[in-house]
Structure formats: structure tokens, C-alpha cells
């Protein structure tokens, strides 16, 4: 069963030190600086586009309704360099995804991390030192 879990916590130190997002096209001020949200969901669509990519994820709410969340990342060249390929997130892929939510309450977030149901981890902005492979 796909649950819906929101963790809105302040991780200022870890987030800032781990931040590798470049955000050259526009500022990232529309996203919360320190809060994170994490959901379990199913990939609806991966928009692998310049200058930014969007991973759309359907999240089932507690009342059974579904909200489509959009997770924004950099463009294809940055994602490919960081090991995120379009085929990694086909429609229907189950995953747990984490990002910094939009300040205005819309269901969008700056994509930080995703863990597919098969356990493979993805860091679209680059793998932070704290998540170094053993």
C-alpha cells in the first residue's frame, strides 16, 4: 500500500552543507530553504527537459484522494552527470522522494533525493558526502 508521509523538519545544517543545486536559470527562493517533505508515491511522468526537469509523482492522501506532486531538478546534462537517466523513472515506478517544498503551498518541491522501491538511491543535485557509498 502506498502511504502518504510528510515530514516537515528543519535540517538547516545538513541541507546547506549538502546543497549542490546550481539553479542558474532562476533563483530557488520559491522553495523552502530548510524544510523537507518526503512522500511515497508512483511516478506519473518524468519531464526530462532544459533548463529544468520535473518528476511528477502521484501521492495517495489519507482520504484516498491523489495529489500529483512535481519535483524540480536541473536539466538533462546535470542529471546524467549525477546518474539520473530518463529510463530510471518510467511511469508507474514506485519510489520514496524527498524535496524542499514550495513556500506558497502548491504541491511542488525542489527534488533532493529519491529511493526507488528496488532500493536504488538517486541524488539529482549530486550525492552529498553524508550519503557516500560504503
Amino acid at each position, binding site marked *: 500500500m502506498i502511504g502518504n508521509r510528510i515530514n516537515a523538519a528543519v535540517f538547516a545544517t545538513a541541507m546547506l552543507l549538502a546543497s549542490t543545486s546550481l539553479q542558474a*536559470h532562476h533563483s530557488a*527562493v*520559491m522553495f523552502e530553504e530548510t524544510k523537507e517533505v518526503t512522500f511515497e508515491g508512483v511516478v506519473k511522468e518524468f519531464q526530462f527537459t532544459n533548463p529544468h526537469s520535473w518528476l511528477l509523482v502521484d501521492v495517495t492522501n489519507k482520504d484516498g484522494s491523489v495529489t*500529483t506532486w512535481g519535483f524540480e531538478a536541473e536539466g538533462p546534462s546535470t542529471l546524467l552527470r549525477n546518474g539520473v537517466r530518463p529510463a530510471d523513472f518510467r511511469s508507474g515506478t514506485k519510489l520514496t522522494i524527498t524535496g524542499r517544498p514550495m513556500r*506558497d503551498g502548491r504541491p511542488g518541491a525542489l527534488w533532493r533525493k529519491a529511493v526507488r522501491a528496488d532500493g536504488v538511491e538517486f541524488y539529482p543535485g549530486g550525492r552529498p558526502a553524508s550519503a557516500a557509498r560504503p
Partner: protein
Amino acid sequence: MKLFKKLAVLVILATVPATVFAQGGRQSPDEFRRMLDVGLKHRTASELYEALKTDAHGGKQSPPYDQLPDWSGLWTAAGGNSFFDPGPGGIMPKLKPAVAAVLKQGAELAAKGIEYDENLSQCGPPGFPRWLVIPFLREFIVRPEQTWLTSETVNNVRRIYTDGRSHPAPEERYPLYYGDSIGFWDGPKLVIHTNQLMTRSMGRQQPSQSDQMETVEIWQKVRAGVIEADVWIYDPALYLEPWYLKRTYNQLPNPTKSVRIQYWNCNENPNNEVYKTPDGSTNYKDLTFTNKNDSKEPTR
């Protein structure tokens, strides 16, 4: 919660200078001062360029391919000093008071989460000299008669003419996003003079450069996988004295050659459309995956 916010600010303050110093760390304060003084010896960028040309015994125009360096591959900006930050050792640029005020105000707004990019938000060109500091991929195409310094960000190309031509005659000049660049080769070094630049913002919450700005650059591959650019900026509307900065570009490991530069179009994906909010910040327009009526201004 307030405690966490204070902690976040402290971390920002602690992290940013560390980054700046790490970026400029390869250049000692003495070396930085020496290079800065090179610019200070000359009243204009043209004079510096001509002096460098004299030092290079006229330099080489349109050298044969076997005398040109190999700058092939994909490159990314690895850091270096920015236009208004202190150089190594804390050497500060001498700014006009109005420019310092704009920077101070910009920093205050950024601290409140208010930022907008007048150039890039709508996929406009970053322009030069901002081109030097933008992220993402670059390719440097070296030919005898021209060198193209290209960047993935908004598909831009700087053309450096090395065939001996001069800048356009004064009566033919007009403001350009990337200016007009001519150059010569001094061995493996490419020396560039740029003028005809446009008055426009130099970045988010940054002051505007003027159409009086002129620059001199020396580009060279200093070792395998590393290209450095020494840059002198002359703009009497910004600086009381010419300023100097060094930028470093690292070659990207791309063993499978799968990473390539692709075209940018901000209209390709409507989810990438942003607008300037009433308070001067940045927010997304209507996102395709949300209800059209759920948009509201960010709370800061």
C-alpha cells in the same frame, strides 16, 4: 524555531566565505596582488591589451592548427573570484558608492528570500562578463581564425576573432550582450580584448554593468584538464580602479561520452515558466500538474 533560523543564518555566514576562499585558494594573495597591479598600470583595457601584445612581440594571428592548444572536451566552471567579492587575502575591489549600496541592498533582500534574475529567468542571455561565472557545461572550439567559447546556459557563443581584424569602427558600434572580442595568441595563451558591451544586470540582486565596460582576458590550459582565465575588468561606472579576477574551468570526465550539450528553451516545458512577484522575487507561474487556482504568493 527561532533558534533553528539563527542557526541557519550562522551556517550560511560560515559556509559562504569558506566557499569563496576555497574557490580562490589556488591563487596566493601575493599572486593576486601582482595580477591586479598589471591592470592598475594601465588606464584602459585597450592600453593593457596593446601592452600585452607588445610583450608578445605582436602575438600570432591565425596560427596553424599544430600551434594551437587542445581545449577539446566538456568543461565546467570550477570557481574563482566573482565580480565583487574580495580576492585572496581579502583584497577588496574599490567600488563606486552607489554600486556598494546596490550590493548591500541585494544582500539584504536575498537574506529575506527575495531574488529575481533579470537576465536568465526568461531565458535571456547571461551576457558577458557574467558568462565567466555561470554554471553548467562549456565547450571551447579553437580554430586559427576564431575561437568559440560556448556555454550550455541559454545556448550562448562568444566569438573571439584571432585573424588580425580590429574592433568595428566607432561609428559602427552598438551595445552587444557578449560584446565584440578580438584576440591574439601568445604561445598557448589566448589574449582577448572585449568592448561594445551592454548596460544590464550582472546577476541576481547585482548592480548593472555599463556600456563603458571593457575587459582583457588571458586564457590558457595550465595543466591537463584545467583551463584558467585571468580577467581584468575596466568599468568606471562600477569600479574606482580596474578589478581583476581569475576563473578556473575543469574538464568533465565523460568516459562514455553520453553527456552532451543540448539546446535550452524555457518554453519547452511550461512548468519552467517563472514570473517576478510584486515584492521583486521569483515564483513559478501556473504549474501544469496543479489546479490553476491554487497559486498564491510565497510567504516569507
